[in-house]
């Protein structure tokens, strides 16, 4: 707690210097004027520094003054102890009391509406209760509404479009009892190949700032902070996703029993979109050992490779290729879903001999586990089907296909697949993938496509 406070005070002092240096757009016109002597040039440069300093101070001050009243700290109160169990930030978007925050900030309430309530803490120390209006679990957004409105309600304006790449943006939050905090950063555009769109933010977002707005220089909201654990670099949810949530601005408050079906509907819809994208085109293949494998099956998964060639003592060759979807969907308390991992390993054990190689090969496919850390309350146990399968390219695999179901959400399953080829005496290809939160149809289509995509060179 103390460490955070010190950190924020320091970063506020750094604000001006940083914006100054990183603001070539404002420096440029002034520098152009410089034609005179060297001294004059220095003078004018110093003047420009001063101007720029004054300008960004003005922006920060404006932001502070104007929107302080529309920024809240969101607290999840546990009813039993009467104390807060988690906090985040939120901002008001209209005068009827609608407040936007992160889904993960209110996720405890969503999972146990009987055991928690949502409250806000305003800049002036006033508190009040909030009702959950809607959630967007895919983009980690939630819309809450103030139960009691005051006489003067202020709201953040929503930007019409994203700013130009390189322009200054400010991440706001209300994490501690300091009141509003501003972290300046630069807009670096949207991540190009990403299924779940996120803005990469070069400032540091602290946990309590989750759900706070990101504004452009005019103070218009163009993103929302996400700083869940595990995201070391700051990511922001972009404008378009907020606009999607605003359609429920006038909606009725969700009943407790409507929450889970709403999330399920969003998860199903999202995974349908994802797998429609994945399954509806032919996958490009690449070479791994003597096999052709479908590794980078789409733009939005990132792939890594490695091998043990540097290990001089190894009696076998192992070449690996793994791809995964970078983002996952946060559900609650460490449970994430929506993940996708593909893994291929080519093993060549010429100096091991047939039996030794197959012993090692068996060990290599032992103990595959789920990619997310779902617990007993979230999912059932795995059930597996195993067989020897020959695909359309004549590749014979020992194939293990395992499933587990989500207890809270119908029609959603986690899938784990492991296969090992049986066609060679000293070589083999292990193919493995895990899918989290998929429907039966998507899983089966994906599995068949995956199994039939492997071939020998």
């Amino acid at each position, binding site marked *: 707690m103390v460490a955070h406070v010190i950190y924020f005070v320091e970063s506020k002092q750094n604000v001006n210097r940083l914006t100054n240096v990183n603001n070539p757009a404002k420096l440029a016109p002034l520098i152009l004027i410089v034609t005179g002597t060297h001294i004059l040039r220095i003078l004018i440069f110093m003047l420009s520094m001063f101007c720029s300093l004054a300008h960004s101070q003005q922006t920060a001050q404006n932001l502070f003054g104007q929107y302080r009243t529309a920024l809240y700290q969101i607290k999840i109160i546990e009813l039993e102890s009467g104390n807060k169990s988690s906090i985040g930030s939120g901002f008001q978007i209209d005068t009827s009391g609608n407040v936007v925050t992160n889904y993960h900030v209110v996720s405890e309430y969503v999972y146990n509406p009987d055991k928690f309530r949502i409250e806000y803490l305003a800049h002036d120390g006033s508190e009040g209760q909030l009702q959950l209006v809607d959630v967007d679990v895919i983009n980690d957004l939630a819309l809450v509404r103030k139960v009691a409105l005051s006489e003067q309600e202020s709201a953040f304006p929503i930007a019409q479009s994203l700013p130009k790449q390189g322009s200054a943006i400010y991440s706001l939050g209300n994490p501690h009892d300091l009141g509003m905090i501003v972290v300046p950063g630069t807009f670096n555009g949207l991540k190009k190949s990403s299924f779940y769109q996120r803005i990469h933010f070069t400032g540091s977002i602290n946990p309590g700032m989750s759900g706070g707005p990101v504004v452009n220089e005019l103070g218009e909201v163009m993103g929302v902070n996400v700083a869940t654990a595990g995201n070391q670099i700051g990511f922001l949810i972009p404008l378009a996703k907020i606009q999607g949530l605003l359609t429920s601005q006038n909606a009725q408050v969700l009943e407790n029993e409507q929450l889970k079906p709403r999330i399920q509907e969003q998860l199903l819809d999202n995974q349908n979109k994802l797998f429609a994208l994945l399954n509806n085109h032919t996958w490009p293949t690449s070479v791994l050992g003597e096999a052709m494998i479908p590794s980078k099956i789409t733009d939005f998964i990132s792939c890594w490779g490695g091998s043990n060639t540097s290990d001089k*003592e190894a*009696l*076998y060759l192992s070449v690996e290729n793994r791809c995964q979807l970078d983002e996952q969907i946060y559900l609650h308390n460490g449970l994430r879903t929506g993940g996708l991992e593909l893994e291929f390993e080519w093993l060549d054990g010429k100096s*091991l001999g*047939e*039996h*030794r*190689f*197959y*012993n*090692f*090969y*068996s*060990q290599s*496919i*032992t*103990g*595959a*586990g*789920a990619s997310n*850390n*779902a*617990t*007993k309350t979230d999912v*059932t*146990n*795995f*059930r*597996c*089907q*195993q*067989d*020897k*399968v*020959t*695909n*359309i390219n004549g590749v*014979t695999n*020992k*194939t*293990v*296909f*395992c*499933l*587990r*179901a989500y207890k809270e959400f119908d029609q959603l*399953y986690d899938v*784990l697949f*492991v296969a*090992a080829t*049986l066609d*060679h*005496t000293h070589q*083999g290809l292990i193919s493995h993938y895990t899918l989290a939160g998929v429907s*039966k149809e998507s899983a*089966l289509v994906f*599995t*068949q496509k995956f*199994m*039939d995509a492997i071939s020998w060179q």
Partner: protein
Amino acid sequence: MAIVLELLSRKNIPLKHYKFEQDYVCVGRDFNNDLRLDDPYVCPSHMLVAIDPESGKLMVNDCQSTNGIKVNNKFVRQATLNSHDIIKIGRTRLRIIDTKVPLVEAIPLSELEENMSWLNQSFLAICLSFVCLGFLLLTKYLGSVQEFNLIKALPSELGQLAVFSLWPLSFAILAKVVKKESHIVSQFSLTWLLVLLTNTLILLQKIAIFNIHPGTWFIWLELLIFALVVGGFIWLSLFIAFHQTNHRRNIIACSMTFIILAPIYALGFLNNDEFDSRPSYNPVLLPPTYNLTSAVPTDKFIGNANSLFTQVDKLKIK
């Protein structure tokens, strides 16, 4: 008419037996007695054993001794004896045997015992132990991924053999304790044969699982075979070690098998479907030579997977 006296140990095991071709026997510490007992608690003339001329039964009479006579732990002055009565004078225990009572028929020599005699060859036992050692080393070699070093592997495998040797050794010692032959060579041969049999069965199990991917019935079959192997091994060990009636041997073998298997079965049932983030599947892969059955096409596999979804859906309700 003869009187037979048997000197017993504290646990009523016969130590020595005396036969007297006369109608009465005097027992005491005096050298004049028919049976002289070197026991300080026995009087010089302690007891008279005689055959009752009318009934023909054996009787004991106390010759006014200091410590008296106990028949089946009861003090008596005079008593008629039945067979199996145990007499205690001083600190000495005796049994007086009526030679008229017929003995139990002899246990017929079993053919099995004759057929098992081939196990009792030192050469065979030594050969088998080397085969076992070779087998263990081969298994270790096949399971290694690094450069294999025989000298380094040897101690651990010898240790394993030593652990296995505990079984025949303990049976040999037990047999020796009850004054029978130890049959140590047969016990060792039997143990090595079991080690080889178990390993062969494990290999067969792997081949079966790899080729037919059986369902839960296979686990029951495995357990049954395991129980039979363990039970049979215990039965044979007992057979070699002790001279028992078949009935008694069966009971001991069954109960020992139960004691060994019950915890294994119980653990299996207790751990039943405990939540695990790792699925349980059989990872055995075998070289193409062992690949005996044909593979299914992809669409058939996917078709079969349909039922897996209903299976996990059912788990949700539980």
